[in-house]
């Protein structure tokens, strides 16, 4: 039904309601320059709190935050890490702070975040003390804090039980990654399916299977996706990288 045996993705690409922005359109636009000026000038004014009400505007949310945090501190939650393959590396001990989600290295969650503090993108100076909490999704969150564990302060649970993924899952992840690297740009889809089945057997995992996604006219190469909850290795058709 779909064109050329694809999955509708090419049709969707063609149905883009706003054409992609060309390089020529980037840069200065009259409206954009106005917005830019407005942001920079407004912020310059607001960093000088010369009136008492400007201070109050900051104080009220601060008091609320402290009150909420104190209430949260009364409940010392702990929860197991259910999504050990994903680690959220937070840049600050604050709800809503920017976080980078990275793949687990197999060790403690903090080990996956330390490189981001050593060689960017978070900093180049090495990490401050890092603490592991558990997000509502079950993924570990690694949060910097100079004042002890921030979990209770932020209303997050402390981890209980092992935080690192089981060794067998790590083996499977490593085997598949190595397979992708060996292919140097294009891993054939049929080869990927066979390799994935071998990797499952070699890792010792049971009740896992392989699913191959829809191919398209430009999608001759394969990538792997791992779904530990559904116990599936997805072979995903993609263009040559």
């Amino acid at each position, binding site marked *: 039904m779909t064109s050329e045996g694809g*999955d509708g*993705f090419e049709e969707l690409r063609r149905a883009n309601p706003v054409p992609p922005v060309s390089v020529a359109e980037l840069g200065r636009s009259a409206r954009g320059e106005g*917005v830019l000026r407005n*942001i920079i000038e407004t912020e310059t004014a607001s960093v000088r709190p010369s009136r008492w009400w400007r201070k109050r505007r900051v104080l009220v949310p601060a008091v609320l935050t402290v009150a909420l945090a104190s209430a949260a501190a009364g409940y010392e939650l702990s929860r197991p890490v259910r999504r050990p393959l994903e680690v959220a590396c937070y840049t600050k001990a604050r709800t809503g702070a920017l976080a980078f989600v990275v793949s687990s290295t197999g060790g403690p969650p903090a080990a996956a975040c330390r490189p981001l503090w050593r060689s960017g993108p978070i900093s180049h100076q090495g990490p401050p003390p890092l603490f592991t909490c558990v997000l509502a999704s079950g993924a570990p969150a690694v949060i910097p804090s100079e004042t002890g564990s921030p979990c209770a302060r932020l209303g997050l649970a402390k981890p209980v039980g092992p935080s690192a993924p089981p060794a067998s899952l790590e083996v499977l992840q490593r085997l598949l990654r190595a397979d992708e690297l060996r292919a140097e740009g294009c891993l054939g889809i049929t080869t990927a399916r066979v390799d994935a089945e071998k990797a499952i057997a070699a890792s010792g995992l049971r009740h896992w299977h392989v699913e191959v*996604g829809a191919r398209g006219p430009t999608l001759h190469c394969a990538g792997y996706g791992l779904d530990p909850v559904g116990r599936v290795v997805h072979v995903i058709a993609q263009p040559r990288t």
Partner: protein
Amino acid sequence: MGDEGARAARVELFTRMFRAHYELVVAYAERRTGSREDAEDIAAATFAAAWRRLDGALAEELQRSWLLSIARGNLANHHRGRRRRRLLIYRALADRPPAAPGVDGGLIVAALDRLRPLEQEILRLAAWEGLPPVEGAAVLGLTVNAYNVRLHRARRSLRAAYEDLQEQAQGSRGDTSRAQGGEQ
């Protein structure tokens, strides 16, 4: 570096980032609102938030996904406000909701609308924004692996919804031609 020097460096960094990405953020928002005016408001709010959060140099390859992740939050607020306003209008008019404005992609867009919100967003990021998995994953706060799995499933759901709609369309065309044949 003194306060003035630090501020000048921050302004310069922000200005470069703004000029490189403003139109991209507007296009991202327009694809999801169907209105250039709303899209410009969302872009302005996005860059205002980016200015407040900008602490230091952010690698160029991370800027687009960082900005789009902020825009995504602003877009959710925009939709919530819009839904509230629309509900009031529907109650007043006792009418059916109109189709999404400014979007006319035929069956494939109708198929997209049938999917779950996260699946829709993953497909839009890949097909319309043209983001590679590493950036799409950053926008949604997922690992590249999790993003790839979800993209794979979303494409499968899109295909199923698209084929379903195509069959329905063919069925209704067949009914129409049979009805016309019967009248002759």
